[in-house]
């Protein structure tokens, strides 16, 4: 079955980023296809590569990047939510005249249309958030 996952909560905020990760892993292990993971609202903070949690803590952002690399996942960050929260890729940083970018490997920035498409193209849309 084809899934799109929506993540509306940031990492280390409550538990939904962890649940979304575990659900995505379990769906892949069962042989389902993840068409897209869409990050919205504070969920865009799952896509920064500059997070440095304590050594004994889980690495949520890195886990997404690793999962994306292993399974070819399409991790999409909402552009308006990202700009509000200072989440930039190189192109956006340049366009905004900023001196740095922070997007993690495997993520890309795009628009809400990607969520709509995910909902249409997938058999299931499962939402995680606060």
């Amino acid at each position: 079955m084809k899934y799109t996952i929506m993540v509306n909560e940031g990492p280390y905020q409550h538990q939904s980023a962890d649940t979304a990760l575990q659900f995505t892993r379990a769906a892949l292990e069962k042989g389902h296809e993840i068409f897209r993971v869409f990050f919205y609202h504070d969920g865009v903070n799952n896509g920064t590569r500059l997070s440095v949690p304590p050594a004994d803590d889980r690495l949520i952002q890195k886990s997404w990047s690793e999962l994306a690399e292993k399974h070819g996942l399409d991790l999409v960050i909402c552009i308006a939510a990202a700009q509000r929260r200072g989440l930039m890729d190189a192109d956006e940083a340049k366009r905004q005249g900023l001196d740095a970018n922070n997007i993690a490997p495997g993520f890309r920035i795009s628009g809400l249309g990607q969520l709509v498409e995910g909902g249409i193209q997938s058999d299931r849309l499962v939402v995680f958030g606060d």
Partner: protein
Amino acid sequence: MAMLHIVNKSPFERVAFDSCLAHASAGDSILMIEDAVVGAVDGSSFSGKVKAAMSDKTVYVLGADLAARGLEGKAMDGIVSVDYAGFVDLTANNDTTQSWL
């Protein structure tokens, strides 16, 4: 059209669980995850509502989240414990999912 209702907030913190129970139809499934798992415990001011829902709906709880809160084995009789693979199966076996955020 059977629906899976996913609840992730404690019924003592938000009204989402109450709203879910008010809207879920006979034959639907309700899954408690994250802080909503406290709703699975018997003897609370909310447990009667969950018991009533079980008359025509199936109620599930994510076992790992129950255990993480020290509530393993304290779920009411009739509530089905699932792991993440079981969570995925529930989303596949129901026609649609609704997350009560």
